[in-house]
């Protein structure tokens, strides 16, 4: 883990109406190293999804600086893979065509990359299936493959497993770890699931709502794969929970 992949500094965002100003995000400072896995956790309305959309370039209405590999983020691009809450596959295209998207499968280079991705997300045998024929977990894996095919600098995941049942979610977390280990893309995950954050991340960013700001950044120094029922895991869970419940934002100091 060497250079910085993503650098967010003094990021502010607010909604203004005639009489009120609502601070959605207040002075967000966060950096993501190359190959690092960072999760953002916080109550609903803390602006974590908004933060992710800003990084993705899908929301341009903010003040501050967002740098990806030292260059300003000006709009959405393939450099920043984005996984939405729902899989958002094209229902009229088969799995392999969804992964290729605007690229042609007739190009042998694309073909072999698509096959590689299908292997990575373990969907061999489903290349020709339509989205309606596969499960929610599989669909989300297709979406991940579609993003990774474009070699993004960072993969942004917006509560990607929130709509899945508990078993599938655990399974998806394991596959995401495996994908991350093999592909070594930096990951920025927004979640409301504490266990998911601890199981996956190098660091956990705990956010507060109204205004949305960073309360604490907790490092997770456990070896992968992590044991969800172990004592260290339990300890971290307590640590994250107490950070979430803390009223005073400045009690838990953090540095970036």
């Amino acid at each position: 883990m060497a250079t910085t992949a993503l650098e967010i500094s003094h990021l502010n965002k607010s909604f203004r109406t005639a009489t009120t100003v609502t601070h959605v995000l207040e002075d967000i400072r966060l950096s993501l190293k190359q190959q690092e896995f960072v999760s953002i956790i916080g109550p609903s309305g803390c602006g974590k999804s908004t933060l992710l959309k800003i990084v993705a370039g899908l929301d341009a209405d903010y003040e501050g600086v967002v740098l990806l590999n030292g260059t300003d983020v000006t709009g959405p691009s393939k450099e920043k893979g984005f996984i939405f809450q729902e899989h958002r596959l094209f229902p009229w295209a088969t799995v392999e065509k969804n992964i290729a998207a605007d690229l042609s499968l007739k190009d042998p280079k694309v073909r072999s990359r698509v096959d590689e991705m299908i292997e990575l997300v373990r969907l061999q045998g489903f290349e020709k299936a339509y989205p309606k024929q596969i499960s929610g977990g599989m669909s989300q894996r297709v979406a991940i493959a579609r993003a990774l095919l474009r070699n993004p600098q960072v993969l942004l995941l917006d509560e990607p497993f929130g709509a899945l049942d508990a078993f599938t979610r655990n399974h998806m977390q394991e596959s995401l770890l495996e994908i991350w280990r093999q592909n070594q893309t930096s990951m920025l995950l927004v979640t409301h699931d504490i266990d998911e954050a601890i199981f996956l991340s190098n660091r956990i960013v705990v956010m507060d709502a109204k205004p949305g700001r960073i309360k604490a950044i907790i490092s997770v120094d456990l070896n992968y794969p992590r044991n969800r029922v172990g004592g260290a895991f339990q300890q971290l869970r307590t640590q994250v929970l107490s950070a979430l419940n803390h009223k005073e934002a400045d009690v838990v100091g953090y540095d970036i």
Partner: protein
Amino acid sequence: MPAKERTKRLLLGLIIPILVLAVWQVAVMAHLLSENLFPPPTSILQDFYEMLVSGELTHHLGISVMRAMIGFIVGGGLGLFFGLMSGLYKRAEELVDPTVQMMRTVPLLAVTPLFILWFGFGELSKILLIAMGAFFPLYVNAFLGVRNVDSKLFDVARVLEFSRLHQLTKVVLPAAMPNILLGVRLSLSTAWLCLVVAELMGADQGIGFLIQDARSYMRTGVVFVGIIIFALVGKLTDSLVRILEARLLQWRDSYRG
């Protein structure tokens, strides 16, 4: 569907038509119905056979199909083009849509005299009438199809940096395809309807002419043959589009009854 189930369904559907034909045949033979106005099914079948063998039927059918096709391609093509444009661009909608919606309310039969005055009884007035009929269903449905595209998929296209062309060919057109195909079906049936109007109005060839001509000579059997042909070809084209639908829209996940 298993073969047994399919034959069962076919037989069930045939009960009413066969019953009607049988009653008709018996009623004419028992002189309950006038043979001049209701030629028995067997005699209609004979007329049909004679016209088929003499080549009269295929000649007139060919002319009619040609007219309907040209009219459909011209009118439907323009409808598709303007529908997509209005759907895609707000400016195009503001420019085109009010006029189209106004024209759409004009009954086709009301403009036929005008078409005859302007373009005479020749092919041009017939094809233009058919084209006008075929224009609106495709326009309306193509427009609707584009506007029904899930905006969430546009976000995906933005994140994946689709070109303008790919946004159109890989997102808008496939998403609008169910509506476009519905438009094609409605346009084809309207084209066929307009063909009948155009040919009954005045023609020296075509199935409509055949019916009109047979009427003046009291050849009721031939009138029936013409009507049956119209029905058969109409049903056939509709089935063709439905096969196309089944092929192109197999990705759809909707209630099938």
